């Protein structure tokens, strides 16, 4: 078998048993890897509570991982989110995925619940559970330091240990499995970390064809202004978007009450370049290297993080934002949900947290202390607890990222149809509504967006299953990645066949969610976006979203997806018809 290893490692933390099994080739061909494979592997337990011992936490890589395919050495973690209740996948860079593949594994499924804190150590063909009481309670940096030398590390911090519903899983290199609280699932299992090492090589079916496709991808990267343009993410990291979102008047500010933050220039891409003198950093196997860090090695925040710890909370200090990011990484918390939850809290108490307050309240959240106890459950539960449901800027309880939906109507729709809740990356309409890739669409129109979102969701489900980085697709397309996949595996894939696989994955997730009680009522935005305008000015009007038009497009989306008016499946046998 080329591309895949064809092997899954199952670990039962309750019994302490570990064992490798073969994965059927047909399953791999049909679900690829990463998100798709992970989603398929939780089929039999998708209705279990996220914290049930029987709920697996699946780490999966893709068929291109371990090859020279650009940006494809990514890891996906899949389980059911304790924050949203949806099936959730989340991907991360770093070396972990590559090492997992080198250990001969396409997927690692962790089930059960350990009686005491453990570390799962995988080295080549062996896997063992090591006692980790001494690591429990430690921050991410110290944990990584203490496990150094054992391979690549995925660990939780105090937030995961304490069941913070937006706790993440941190990679040793500083990347994070950030959304949906999968760190809390890991913490509930008393699994502090996974370390992995291996030295197996991935074989490619047709090296010459593969190299040709790789060169095609690189040529498209070089032609992309967003990737390698002089104002692009390779030069500035994702904070390159700060100025653009300010200019488009869609930077969420003060808990989405406004859409322009006058002082966003303090943390723009050029400001970070000037103040922090960043060096290039990034994921293994990625030529873009959009992640940035200081010369001392401190990881610098991404766009979402600078904007949410900045504009969303009314904080103009770059230093404070960088410290908030570092602290979240250290505690093991999703920066988007953390900042958005603080912002909801700020609106409720009538005062957004000052820069000087942030560190203490973040630490309290991670340890569930004081006011942090309520905030650790995310903005939606906090809003319900204080009887102010309108202050949670979330969809399906997942806090929205830094693209105001009043400034991009495809984004408005996509937040709602996303299977993991309010996420920008499922359909990523910012790509065409703002960044003009592959072509520009009218950001203030719903026309055609239902079909566009559906196609993009399918496409991105395939990309997440390869597992490649979405940023690659600011330049390349599925054409080049289908060619890489065909050359790597020897199996024939086309953009169309990949989109069909993506559709299967998307619908499987949707089916799980419907089984867990989600309906059209959950596919909606916070009321604010239908009732209040954004910050109009400079010739750009940001009115509230037309609810009627939104609902009309949502119904179109359901029809295109073959769903009922209530967003449900017309027949109960969908899963039975899937491989």
């Amino acid at each position, binding site marked *: 078998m080329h591309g895949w290893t064809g092997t899954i490692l199952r670990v039962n933390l309750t019994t302490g048993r570990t064992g490798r099994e073969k994965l059927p080739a047909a399953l791999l061909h049909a679900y690829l890897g990463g998100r798709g494979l992970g989603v398929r592997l939780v089929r039999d337990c998708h209705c279990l509570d996220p914290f049930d011992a029987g709920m697996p936490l699946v780490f999966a890589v893709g068929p291109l991982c371990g090859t020279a395919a650009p940006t494809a050495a990514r890891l996906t973690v899949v389980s059911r989110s304790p924050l949203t209740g949806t099936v959730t996948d989340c991907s991360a860079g770093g070396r972990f995925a590559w090492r997992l593949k080198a250990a001969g594994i396409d997927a690692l499924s962790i089930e059960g619940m350990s009686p005491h804190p453990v570390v799962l150590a995988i080295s080549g063909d062996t896997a063992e559970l090591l006692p980790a009481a001494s690591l429990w309670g430690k921050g991410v940096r110290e944990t990584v330091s203490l496990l150094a030398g054992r391979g690549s590390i995925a660990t939780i911090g105090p937030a995961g240990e304490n069941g913070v519903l937006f706790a993440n899983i941190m990679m040793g290199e500083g990347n994070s499995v950030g959304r949906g609280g999968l760190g809390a699932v890991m913490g509930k299992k008393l699994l502090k970390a996974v370390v992995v090492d291996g030295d197996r090589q991935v074989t490619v079916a047709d090296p010459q064809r593969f190299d040709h496709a790789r060169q095609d991808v690189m040529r498209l990267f070089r032609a992309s*202004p967003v990737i390698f*343009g*002089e*104002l692009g993410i390779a030069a500035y990291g994702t904070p390159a978007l700060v100025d653009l979102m300010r200019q488009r008047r869609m930077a969420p500010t003060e808990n989405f009450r406004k859409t322009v933050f006058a002082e966003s220039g303090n943390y723009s891409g050029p400001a970070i370049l000037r103040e922090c003198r960043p060096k290039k950093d990034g994921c293994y196997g990625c030529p873009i290297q959009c992640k940035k860090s200081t010369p001392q090695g401190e990881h610098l925040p991404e766009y979402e993080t600078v904007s949410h710890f900045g504009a969303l909370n009314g904080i103009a200090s770059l230093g404070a934002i960088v410290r908030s990011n570092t602290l979240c990484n250290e505690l093991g918390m999703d920066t988007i949900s953390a900042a958005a939850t603080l912002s909801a809290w700020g609106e409720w108490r009538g005062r957004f947290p000052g820069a000087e307050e942030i560190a203490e309240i973040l630490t309290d959240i991670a340890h569930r202390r004081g006011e942090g106890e309520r905030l650790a459950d995310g903005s939606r539960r906090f809003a319900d607890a204080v009887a102010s449901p309108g202050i949670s800027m979330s969809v399906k309880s997942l806090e929205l990222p830094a693209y105001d939906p009043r400034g991009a109507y495809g984004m408005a729709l996509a937040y709602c149809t996303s299977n993991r809740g309010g996420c920008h990356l499922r359909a990523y309409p910012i790509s065409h509504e703002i960044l003009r890739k592959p072509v520009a669409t009218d950001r203030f129109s719903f026309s055609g967006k239902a079909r566009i979102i559906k196609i993009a969701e399918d496409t991105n489900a395939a990309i997440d299953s390869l597992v490649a980085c979405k940023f690659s697709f600011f330049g390349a397309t599925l*054409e080049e990645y289908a060619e890489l996949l065909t050359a790597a595996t020897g199996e024939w894939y086309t953009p*169309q*066949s990949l989109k*069909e696989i993506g559709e299967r994955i998307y619908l499987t997730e949707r089916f799980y969610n419907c089984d867990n009680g989600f309906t059209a009522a959950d596919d909606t935005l916070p009321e604010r976006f239908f009732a209040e305008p954004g910050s109009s000015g400079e010739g750009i009007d940001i009115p509230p979203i037309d609810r009627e038009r939104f609902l009309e497009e949502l119904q179109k989306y359901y*029809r295109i997806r073959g769903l009922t008016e209530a967003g449900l499946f017309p027949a109960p046998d969908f899963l039975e018809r899937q491989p």
Partner: protein
Amino acid sequence: MKDQIAAYTAKLVADRSAFPGDIAFAAQDDVLLTSGNAALSRLAGDVLSRLSCLALVAARPSLPFADLLVQRSGADETAIVPRDTETRTFLHDIPFLRRADLSEDPAPRIARLLGNRKGVVVEGTGIVAGGAVTVEQAFINYCSVFHATFVKYLQDILHEGFRLPGEAAALRAFRSEWLRPLTAEGLAFRQGTLEEPAEILDEIASVGRYTVERGLVDSFFGNISARSGSLIYISQTAASLDELAGCIDPVPMDNSSTAGITASSELLAHRRIYETTDALVILHGHPKFSVVMSMECSEENCPVTDCWKECPRVRFLGDTPVVAGEIGAGGLARRVPPVIADRGKALVYGHGVFTAGEDFGAAFRTMVAVENWCREEYFRRMEAKTGECFSGGIGCTGQRP
């Protein structure tokens, strides 16, 4: 969507890349829409309904070059491989279906090919191109295939001569009936230095439209900019040059803002030109004869094989320098600025023309002159190669005088 279909049908007619009566679009929202020529509409709808794609265009190109390329291809060939860098970068290759391979219902086979590529040539039917996201994208992909086949056919016959009956007559008809005199006459350009932002934006939009209307660029290719003090006003990436209103980014020369991340992929080249010359405006188009001729090189036994990106030499077509270099960050921005200063013009191998100057009138006329020179030189070489006359004028018998 109906509005978009009407708009892009009109564009295909205006740029003369398709026969007016032989254009059809299909688009799917929650229902399938088709429009245009009845038979092609049926085909477009049948193909699109098999694809995860928003729109599709099926049209008969106004020139026979795509079909002739299919007919000239070897029996074992299944695709046309473009040589110009723009379409080569974005299309890779263009699969084709021969007339003999078409069944009563060709839609499944066309859909299968389009499931892997952006455009397909169907011999005797036309070009079928998809748009994953918009109707515009289908139009763009059609234009890209039309451009690619145009350039490749002209280059192939220049190298290999005619192989099929009727090719010489087709080229003669192309020159006498399809090609039009290329001039800047009748166009109004603002004189002097542009200073007011509104004036700059308006002039860029007007000149962008001129480049499309005069055939110096297909609607969505190319880019245009003007410098005013510390700002570069430049067309956005993937913008149609004939519809630039609202699609021009002001970019600070010192990179103090990244709002211009949506600017043209050639921003770096424009900036370097402004940094190293006195130019105040830059125009970049893909006039077809310039693209064809830029790839003509008389060097023998040259060790460079990837000429389009690796050739280190500065060659000349007339007095226009020709350099190699990939799009965007791929080298073009390094090689164009040093050669454009002297004459205000440069050709990029297999790609297009950059002109620079103090005002758009001068830059536009320079581009026209480069394309006219290349057009004349192309036919001069064709006549020398074949011994035939392609002027098509009175007294042209087909034999070179």
